[in-house]
């Protein structure tokens, strides 16, 4: 179950995020939290950083082309090294000596991912070695889930607005048929899974329908979307607002 603090942070994700990295670090019991976005398995943009150590660590991975963040992007699996002194030297042969001067004794890297859609990576760093507690794990998993949904829609203002008003955020995303429809759409339109999911959500919004119904229509081939459908109707039906 989420802590009250993380619930509040997730609520704030859609507003100004200035102080959020520091708040997250405090709730997660770590010193620094860094969030980077990725394209094609490469870290492209550092969006969040709660201190110089986090930025330096991320820059080192970028410069050396190796590290847990890149491993997470490649495999989609989180890396939890709660005692860096136990990590074998050949795990990240260039990075480990280069980061030796940074106060990092524990490192947690989690993908911002929805199945095979990987948008980036969250890195949490601590100067003392210990595992995360069960509560901290629940909170960090909810945080990467919230950030993933947030960034999925971030390149489209109107879709972003739609995401913000449709609580709970993850409505429909627990349904297999939505992910199947996303896969089918990505082939039909020749776009990425992330783009396909956006198109599906935008269509759902502009037609005032449930995402599950639309997904079922796509999977059973009663409905075929065009690339144009990714543009939500500028004047959506009144009943779908709020």
């Amino acid at each position, binding site marked *: *179950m*989420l802590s009250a603090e993380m619930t509040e942070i997730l609520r704030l994700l859609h507003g100004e995020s200035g102080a959020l990295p520091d708040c997250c670090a405090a709730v997660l019991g770590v010193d620094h939290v860094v969030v980077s976005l990725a394209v094609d*398995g490469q870290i492209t943009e550092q969006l969040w950083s709660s201190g110089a150590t986090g930025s330096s660590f991320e820059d080192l991975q970028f410069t050396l082309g190796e590290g847990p963040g890149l491993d997470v992007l490649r495999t*989609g*699996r*989180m890396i*939890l090294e*709660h*005692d860096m002194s136990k990590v074998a030297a050949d795990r990240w042969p260039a990075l480990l000596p280069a980061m030796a001067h940074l106060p990092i004794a524990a490192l947690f890297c989690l993908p911002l*991912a*929805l*199945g*095979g*859609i990987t948008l980036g990576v969250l890195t949490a760093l601590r100067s003392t070695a210990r*595992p*995360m*507690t*069960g509560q*901290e*794990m*629940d*909170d960090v*998993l*909810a945080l990467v*889930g919230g950030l993933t949904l947030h960034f999925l829609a971030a390149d489209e203002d109107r879709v972003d607005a739609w995401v913000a008003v449709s609580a709970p955020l993850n409505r429909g995303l*627990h*349904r*297999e*048929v939505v*992910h*199947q*429809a*996303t*896969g*089918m*759409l*990505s*082939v*039909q339109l020749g776009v990425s*899974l992330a783009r396909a999911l956006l198109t599906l959500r935008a269509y759902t919004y502009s037609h005032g329908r449930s995402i599950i119904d639309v997904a079922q229509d796509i*999977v059973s081939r009663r409905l075929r979307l065009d690339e144009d459908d990714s543009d939500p109707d500028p004047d959506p039906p009144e009943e779908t607002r709020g």
Partner: protein
Amino acid sequence: MTTMSREQQVSAVFVQVADSLIDDFDLIEFLQQLCGHCVMLLDVSAAGILLADERDILQTVAASDETTEMLELFALQHDQGPCLECYSSGRARTNIDLGNSAAVSAWPAFAAQARRSGLHTSHVFPLRLRDRAVGALNLFHHGSQSLTSQDASLAQALADVATIALLQQRDIGREQQEKAQLQYALTSRITIEQAKGILAERWNSTPDTAFRALRSYARTHQLRVSDCARGIIDQTLDTDDIPHP
């Protein structure tokens, strides 16, 4: 298999289970086989395994019958149904009559979907971790058969095996590791659904058919289904290499 006595069948299943629990086993495939074992050993019509995510929402990770209709029935249980009740209480419940008024009023959408699928009886067993549940094993009958207490013990043992497979325990950072493993199972599931969609569209088939082909490809090449799914998505696996229906 049919000529074996029930005891022989049970032993054979547990031997196979123990053999599968080696390093690097395919978790989703393992849980699906376990659902298949439930159907055979307990003579039920369908079995599914649901896990709770970090928000306490139940998600399907495996089912004996991966048709859209069955997956829908499990999916509905994120907010109602015997699995949710079992997950909250941590207690097993057997011989639930899905047609009686108590079930219909407690779980209207779930009971209606079950009836549409011709399912009349349900049983549910917790995936137990210490003093709480992390998910549930859900069994269904088309008819109104009941499980004997001996069957119920066997079902609980199979649910415990699922928990063991999910949580390969380590001493240090146990909770951290457990939560990471549960999360991995849930993520793998979504990846597989996305890959089913990609294959279904390429082959003009249903997602169910696509999944059967993907699963048999993974088995033949001794790969994890979830790794194959990921390979399809990031295009490191050429879908033309997968024999399709």
